[in-house]
């Protein structure tokens, strides 16, 4: 985050309207100077950053997770339960999309592909996202349940990835972990409120968690790729995140007087391109325009 002093000049906007003491203004706006997808694209282009094949595969997983979730969350903008929540879910969607763009841009460095080539011109079985990310929004409780699982998982993951031996993964994670920390808070606040609100909201919250919990296990499965990356220090075993995830989500569930849903785990397979029935539709909608005009610039 840049200090306001250094930010002045490259981002300050003035309408020339009477706004009182500009130093005290609550409308002073700056773009900040955090890591952006464009910065990573530049590093990739200039050869400053180039992922190994394994790291690229891994970045593709994380990027797809964020992209698919952003696509889902974006649907809430203009449909939230209250306008304030439109804005809140919009911020979360934008954070996830930002992470996705960074990861995909980096991954593309291994195969000379742009974030858009990866997002719009891969087919369903080439996506590497986990099943939970593509689960339909359902009602607000289902969306919150999905956010609850995802944000607590991503927080544990990104927290550890800040120590990655791969500098770019570490940098992306360092930006993402702070944002995801807020997503945790947002979802936890809502889990508490829906569980402790009315009878109807409690029923819906319980149902939402039940809907999402079958897809929790997949997030913590190790495979050959993650094992190799964990050994090299570029990533961590997903299974090693589980204890912290269980403990921290457990604390919130206990406070909300909710049980961890007792539901069988779905078999997973998203990391290897085997998805639920939902992803095809999501991608069809997301990719339709780009594919109508292959090679076009937007």
């Amino acid at each position, binding site marked *: 985050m840049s200090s306001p002093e250094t930010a002045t000049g490259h981002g300050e906007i003035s309408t020339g309207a009477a706004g009182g003491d500009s130093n005290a203004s609550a409308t002073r706006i700056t773009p900040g100077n955090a890591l952006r997808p464009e910065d990573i694209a530049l590093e990739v282009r200039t050869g400053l950053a180039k992922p190994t094949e394994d790291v690229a595969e891994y970045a593709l997983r994380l990027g797809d997770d964020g992209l698919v979730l952003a696509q889902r969350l974006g649907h809430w903008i203009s449909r939230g339960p209250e306008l304030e929540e439109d804005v809140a879910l919009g911020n979360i969607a934008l954070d996830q999309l930002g992470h996705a763009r960074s990861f995909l841009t980096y991954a593309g460095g291994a195969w000379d592909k742009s974030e858009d080539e990866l997002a719009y011109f891969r087919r369903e079985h080439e996506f590497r996202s986990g099943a939970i990310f593509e689960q339909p929004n359902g009602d607000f409780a289902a969306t919150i349940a999905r956010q609850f699982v995802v944000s607590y998982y991503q927080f544990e993951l990104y927290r550890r990835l800040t120590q990655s031996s791969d500098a770019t993964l570490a940098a992306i994670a360092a930006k993402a972990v702070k944002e995801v920390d807020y997503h945790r808070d947002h979802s936890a606040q809502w889990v508490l409120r829906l569980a402790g609100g*009315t009878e109807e909201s409690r029923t819906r919250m319980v149902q939402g968690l039940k809907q999402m919990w079958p897809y929790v296990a997949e997030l913590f499965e190790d495979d050959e790729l993650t094992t190799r990356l964990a050994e090299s220090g570029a990533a961590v075993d997903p299974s090693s995140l589980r204890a912290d995830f269980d403990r921290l989500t457990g604390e919130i569930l206990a406070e909300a007087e909710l049980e961890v849903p007792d539901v069988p785990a779905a078999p997973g397979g998203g990391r290897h391109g085997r998805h639920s029935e939902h992803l095809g539709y999501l991608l069809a909608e997301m990719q339709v325009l780009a594919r109508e005009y292959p090679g076009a610039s937007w």
Partner: protein
Amino acid sequence: MEANAQRDTVGQNADSQDADGQANFDRVIAEDSRIEPRDWMPDAYRKTLLRQISQHAHSEIIGMQPEANWISRAPSLKRKAILMAKVQDEAGHGLYLYSAAETLGQSRDKMMADLIAGKARYSSIFNYPARTWADMGAIGWLVDGAAICNQVPLCRASYGPYGRAMVRVCKEESFHQRQGFEILLELAHGTPEQKRMAQDAVNRWYAPALMMFGPPDDDSPNSRQSMAWNIKRFSNDELRSRFVGMMVEQVRVLGLTLPDSEIRFNEDTKRWEHGPLDWNEFHEVLAGRGPCNAQRLERRREAHDDGAWVREAAAAYAAKQSMKTKEQAA
């Protein structure tokens, strides 16, 4: 604080207080200073503002829909992020404006209920469909462009909370028009099909955008009073003419054309003139008979109704927590 604005001065000595209030109000307006929520103000002033600010807020909220329609299909991830941020900003702008309207003594719930019931107006342009991706460009460039033209002078509106809301809105919207312009610029320099798409969008949004400034001056009975109150600073036609002048310049940079062969600069009046606008269509759409009126209201109603249990749950939770805190204190 500001939302509690009520007619404080209306009491036992209503008449003399009204007279004092009116004198103070007149002085503030004459000095081009600002009226604040707890000040005495004429009923007509309050009503005019309430109508204008709530319509403005509704326009932001309904205006989210045509663009939200393309978030999921944005053709690049960068454009997706920009569009998401823009539509989200519009929710924010609606909120700033509802807050300003609330300071005049009407709750947001009431305003929302009126909107959903079809009793409130909003900018009729949002009742047109966003058919292609190029519409995201045309909406940003023309619709936001016209809105900004309208809004910049409103930053100096005599009602403090409205002016302050507009300052914030204008600062944030500076990117909205630019992103729309750049979408069109990209398309205009793309494939012939993309360029056709861009031109088609400009053709469809041009006239509705001009009509956003409201009816011609001689058919706009409320304008004069609004200007006397320093709510409006320029007449509808003045702003429209200024806007046309800007578009004439900008469309050249785009390499596109405006669908109006009668645009010319009148040397005598020093104003830009444009071809005739179909005000009959404007009134039809305003009266609810536009292509998307029903769809837009239904979507808003659905979101509002679907969210009822969530709002209720949060309120119930807050009440329970507050009870607990009190019990612990006791």
